[in-house]
């Protein structure tokens, strides 16, 4: 801990008022102090000051945070608790060498009985083979480190054809008004290529030419959140290289979490003195989330006629989109204007769904419990369709609904817009 005085200084700013207890989705399930920001900050402070050990328990306590940022947003003293916790995780990785999810993977790999029983489930083992096709550093691997998976978990089937295998380079709009890059992300590439396809079709339809570099990679957020700073650094370089194309006005990411990583965290990964930093800043300043981009592209929404049958929908705010990027009005405005659909706001729409990257992996039961509250809020709206704008939230909501045997559709905002666009 001695190596990171700025982490300690920030942790010390916590005056222990306890306001975060009322905010933290994890604390509200458990009602135990180590689970809330105040406890973690107190612990980081104590371990740092005593130059204490990074014990297994310390590691475990640090893993029990979603990094949803709700405590930080509401802290009366402006303590950046989520950032302190992430940096403490990074320190732990530096000291101990292994990231939390990787540890979990090894633990289960060595437990051969578990691994075998898992493999024996036919469909799942097939999935395992599919996953061999996903690069080592993809965030999906951290989200689904297969041997470590709980057998209850709903895993969407991997796509037969990955998006980037069939779409790359320039796709020109007939009447071009603008040029953008499309950052597809792991979920948009391996799991739901139709989501990326929707974005592409929609942009082209509105006169936006789209550049899709085949060499783009995972944004690096799942690794970054679990304290691994090296993997995201090399991913950032590759992504920035991939999108080196002068004429791009914007780089659009349909996932709020990817967008937040590319836009806000990339510049922090590099030292200010790094000669690469100028390119990082140029890249990051172009990054935008798809709902924000669509809101500007489509202009002021007006409810009109269009395809699609009548349904009731609700919207879940992804933490990164709302709290980091400050985007929450635009998605609602867009959804409210969709034809044939009735929008119903759910209670506490900005409450975290419980995915939280590696949190979901290390604390699956707790993660499901938190998702349970979200599902209840969705139920209260009577909605048939839940819309969100982040790949992590998509997966979590699908899993949460599946666990409760509820047959509601979970859709990405981009798909909803595409579906409602006449002649598309």
């Amino acid at each position, binding site marked *: 801990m001695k190596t990171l005085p700025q982490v300690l200084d920030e942790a010390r700013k916590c005056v222990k008022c*306890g*306001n975060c207890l009322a905010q933290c989705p994890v604390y509200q399930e458990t009602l135990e102090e*180590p689970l809330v920001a105040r*406890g*973690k900050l107190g*612990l980081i402070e*104590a*371990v740092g000051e005593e130059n204490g050990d990074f*014990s297994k328990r310390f590691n475990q*306590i640090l893993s029990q945070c979603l990094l949803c940022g709700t405590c930080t947003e509401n802290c009366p003293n402006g303590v950046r608790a989520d950032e302190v916790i992430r940096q403490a995780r990074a320190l732990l990785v530096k000291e101990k060498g292994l990231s939390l999810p990787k540890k979990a993977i090894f633990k289960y790999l060595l437990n051969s009985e578990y691994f075998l029983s898992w493999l024996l489930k036919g469909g799942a083992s097939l999935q395992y083979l599919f996953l061999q096709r996903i690069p080592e550093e993809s965030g999906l691997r951290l989200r689904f480190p297969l041997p470590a998976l709980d057998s209850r978990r709903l895993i969407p089937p991997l796509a037969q054809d990955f998006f980037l295998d069939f779409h790359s380079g320039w796709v020109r709009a007939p009447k071009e008004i603008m040029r953008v890059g499309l950052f597809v992300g792991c979920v948009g590439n391996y799991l739901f290529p139709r989501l990326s396809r929707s974005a592409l079709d929609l942009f082209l339809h509105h006169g936006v030419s789209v550049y899709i570099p085949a060499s783009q990679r995972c944004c690096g957020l799942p690794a970054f959140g679990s304290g691994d700073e090296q993997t995201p650094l090399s991913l950032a370089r590759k992504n920035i290289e991939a999108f080196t194309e002068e004429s791009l006005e914007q780089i659009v990411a349909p996932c709020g979490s990817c967008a937040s990583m590319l836009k806000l965290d990339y510049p922090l990964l590099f030292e200010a003195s790094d000669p690469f930093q100028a390119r990082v800043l140029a890249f990051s300043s172009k990054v935008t989330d798809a709902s924000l981009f669509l809101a500007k592209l489509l202009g002021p929404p007006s409810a009109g006629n269009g395809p699609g049958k009548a349904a009731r929908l609700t919207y879940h705010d992804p933490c990164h989109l709302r709290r980091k990027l400050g985007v929450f009005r635009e998605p609602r405005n867009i959804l409210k204007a969709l034809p044939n659909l009735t929008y119903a706001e759910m209670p506490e729409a900005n409450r975290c769904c419980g995915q939280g990257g590696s949190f979901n992996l290390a604390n699956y039961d707790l993660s499901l419990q938190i998702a349970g509250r979200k599902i209840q809020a969705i139920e209260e709206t009577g909605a048939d369709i839940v819309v969100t704008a982040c790949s992590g939230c998509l997966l979590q909501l699908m899993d949460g609904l599946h666990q409760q045997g509820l047959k509601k559709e979970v859709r990405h905002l981009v798909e909803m817009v595409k579906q409602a666009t006449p002649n598309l």
Partner: protein
Amino acid sequence: MLEKSISKKIWNIVGQENVVADKETRICYSYDATNLKYLPDLVVYPTTREQISEILKLANEDRFPVIPRGAGTGFTGGTLPVEGGVLLVLTKLNKILQIDPENLLAVVEPGVVTFDLQKEVEKIGLFYPPDPASLKTSTLGGNVAECAGGPRAVKYGVTKDYVLGLEVVLPTGEIISTGVQTVKSVVGYDLTKLLVGSEGTLGIITKIILRLLPLPKDKRTLLAIFPTIETAATTVSRIIGSRIIPTTLEFMDNATIRCVEDYLHLGLPVEAGALLIIEVDGVPEAISQDIREIQKICLDHQALEAKVAKDAQEAEELWKARRSVSPAVVKLNPTKINEDITVPRSKVAEILRRVEAIAQKYNLIIVNFGHAGDGNIHVNVMIDRRRPGEEERAHAAVKEIFAATLELGGTLSGEHGIGITKAPYISMELGDMGLEVMKRIKKAFDPNNILNPGKIFPDKTKAKAY
């Protein structure tokens, strides 16, 4: 340190999953909102009153301290394990057992969060008025143990005015029920009132019967700005004198206004001497008239401005200034010594003048805000512990502030309690014999000094923070 054999016995009582001994967890339970730290030897999450009873019996046999803890938001150290021992965390005993609209009462477990009860009863048009600033986090058990107050105390009183009865595990392990479910009762000593505000030294609360009121139909909010503390204080007296009791009557002094303006840029006049935020509640027609009268009184008494909020959203804007005080003032200096002296309403201006003089004498930054309507002033000495001598000067200043408060007929603590932080000063207010009577009561309840030792009484509070 507790012997291993004791931990084993506690496992047998509550189950191994409800006992935590690792240092990391204990560190997470070593503090409260005072930000002072004392490590407990063991953290226990009891799930029934019988388990609490068993643990206390064991504590009397094996002589170890037991400290009850709710959300840990106290400002005087009431839940700090100053002598180590077993920390009983009661947050999981959090069921609302009953809401009875016919008899206007609620029965709750101690871990219920104050705000959660308020939300529930308001759904059916009922009202639980006490509103400590920590209400979204703090537990009702903690509110009762500390007799929590809040801005609405002007009109509605404090926690003790709503507690009808309690179920309590005595320090010796017996379980008793005190009080009643009726409005009236005179049967023996009023143990309920004795337990409310006893800071966890006389018993562990396991059930609370609370009185409820009908929910007021509407409210109106006004913000008024004054050239001086005196004009604001006179206005407060005149409002009460005109037979209007507002729900809240909050004030901020010049130093506080400057901090808030610096922090939020709301356009508050930084030269203003004081600011009042006044709220009235009740039937819409009546409160419209009340708020107009209050506005007139403000303007008649030199208010530079008196603005009535048009709707709930505007009211929220006005409250923003008051709510941002905490984060705004810590910008002055990192450490806030937060006292909650209370004087008779008519002495508010006088005590503020004296505090100002004391601040100058000791060369300290002191900001004042709080509940002008009931004379409860939050006096905040803002210090930087890294500057040598500053903490000592602050303590000397606090002692003088307490002396001035008592001279004006006030009390050391309106709503925070004594705990450990005010224990050295308690006899200033109670006198030796008053304190002695309280010690005898403590001894009658807790002959072995098992429950929350080192609190309230000054002699044994010298344990070291780690």
